[in-house]
């Protein structure tokens, strides 16, 4: 394999994975075009060392950053999606699920881990945008629920890392009710006075924003993440003009009072751990 070929693999990420998992040996920052090896990139927690651009990463990567020694027990790992409505658009939902599972190596758009973070027990639920755009179907709801149950059983905090395009249309009403279900579970967590930290990452929109992502005891976000209920295109169509600079960025959402703080991925673990210590 020639050097050229490797490089090409490196900077061409597969469409399917939406740049979440750059493969090969080289990573080029989409913002400043700086190139580093993927090893360096991973060592920098997938942040561009030059411009601080936070690359979109998946649950496996977040877990590796947050859990001590990257050790954790996965919760409800075996759940996969049913097809309650026998939904078919241009493709049958059943097939879409099967294909996505095969391609992504994921079971659905949320993974839940239980482990320790700076020595404190914690349950972390983390969305995978690579699984049908991080859309919320029944499996996301149920895994979230079991994550909350685990936190209650372990008397430990619950963290959820959101990254979602919103609802999973192919589950229609079932998808909608996951907003209710996840919120219901959070009332149980609250009854036990266990902290819930919601980390919003790029992007967090739709039904996820309108349910668990906004319900943190503290809501925090990665820099520059897009956060909103309606997507920017819809808002633009509604108002019939261009959106102001920075609209729906994490910084914008902080100014408008919905985030407790914005934190870079480098400081994420330490700051979350401190916040948890303060609430436990």
């Amino acid at each position, binding site marked *: 394999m020639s050097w050229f070929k490797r490089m090409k693999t490196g900077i061409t990420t597969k469409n399917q994975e939406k740049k979440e998992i750059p493969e090969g040996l080289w990573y080029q920052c989409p913002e400043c075009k700086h190139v580093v090896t993927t090893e360096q990139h991973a060592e920098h927690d997938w942040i561009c060392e030059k411009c601080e651009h936070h690359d979109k990463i998946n649950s496996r990567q977040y877990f590796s950053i947050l859990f001590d020694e990257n050790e954790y027990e996965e919760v409800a790992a*075996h*759940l*996969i*999606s*049913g*097809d*309650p*409505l026998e*939904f*078919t*658009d*241009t493709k049958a939902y059943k097939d879409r699920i099967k294909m996505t599972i095969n391609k992504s190596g994921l*079971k659905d758009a949320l993974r839940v881990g239980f482990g320790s973070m700076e020595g404190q027990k914690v349950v972390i639920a983390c969305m995978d945008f690579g699984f049908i755009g991080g859309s919320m179907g*029944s*499996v996301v*709801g*149920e895994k979230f*629920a079991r994550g909350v149950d685990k936190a209650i059983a372990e008397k430990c905090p619950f963290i959820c890392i959101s990254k979602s395009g919103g*609802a999973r*249309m192919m*589950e*229609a*009403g*079932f*998808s*909608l*009710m*996951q*907003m*209710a*279900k996840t*919120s*219901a*579970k*959070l*009332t*149980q967590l609250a009854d036990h006075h266990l902290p819930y930290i919601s980390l919003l990452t790029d992007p967090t929109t*739709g*039904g996820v*924003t*309108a*349910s*668990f*992502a*906004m*319900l943190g005891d503290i809501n925090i976000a990665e820099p520059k993440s897009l956060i*909103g*209920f*309606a997507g920017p295109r*819809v*808002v633009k169509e*509604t*108002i019939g003009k261009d*959106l*102001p600079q920075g*609209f*729906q960025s994490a910084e914008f959402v902080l100014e*408008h*009072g*919905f985030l407790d703080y914005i934190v870079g991925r480098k400081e994420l673990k330490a700051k979350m751990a401190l916040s948890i210590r303060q609430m436990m």
Partner: protein
Amino acid sequence: MRNYLDFEAPIKELDEQIQKLKDSAVKSGVNVDNAVAELEKALVSKTTEIYSNLDPWQKVQLSRHPDRPYALEYIEKLTEGTWVELHGDRTVKDDKAMIGGFGLLSGQSVMFIGQQKGVNTKMRQYRNFGMANPEGYRKALRLMKLAEKFNKPIVTLIDTPGAFPGLEAEERGQGEAIARNLFEMMRLKVPVICIIIGEGASGGALGIGIGDRVLMMENTWYSVISPESCSSILWRSWDHKVTAAKALKLTADDMKNNGLVDGIIREPLGGAHANHEEAAHILKSVILEEIAKLSALEQEKLVEQRITKFCAMGSFIEA
């Protein structure tokens, strides 16, 4: 002048024939009672036929029928002059797309909350087409907490094409407002009955839709997205709305069968728009019955059952 949807054409024809016959009788003095009776029989049978065979897209159309009663009209009919509208979110605004207040329902005080669509062009604007801003959801929550304080049941009437996707709505946290309502409604210590009376579109509907009983009127829809938007996203064209309406399983029957709502409220023959009085009458008896049942439960039990119900929603495989 009532309005007719396309598939109501046969009904329109019979309505017009009956009217014409009656008009001619007035002029000519000829007795047409028998002929009218015949036609009215035909009308009932035609209407029954049409309304027994509605497809999901037709139900969506009915849910938006311009003659359909809106929340305020139901509330006024139900409470017979004892409704006092309460305004404001106590933070930034009074949202006209979301209404609320106490009214007496057969002497029993009930907090009514609902999205309100406008009855004419001017009012549609005023009501923002029934699309609430965050302050609407916050007003609703404030009023629900007020009802809880005085131990009064809550009835929400859902009828919205969605939460408003505007710039200011985003600035003031549409997502947070809806999320907060889901969370807080889940643990209200009083009976909560949610009724979809028209359109039940996505988070905007669910934002006042967490109840011990979630009921759909016959000719309404409730789903995560409208058939039109679903079509445009999944099929990349607006042309598949009929297919989308079917695929989304958004009718009262489908939602009930999937365990996502608790029941269906019958509408008068020809739909709620054909007989507002009867529609309100049916609504009233259902609400009174449900309140009676729910009031018998202890508060803790009520909340626990509500949470358990929503937690049970979902379909997945333990592989």
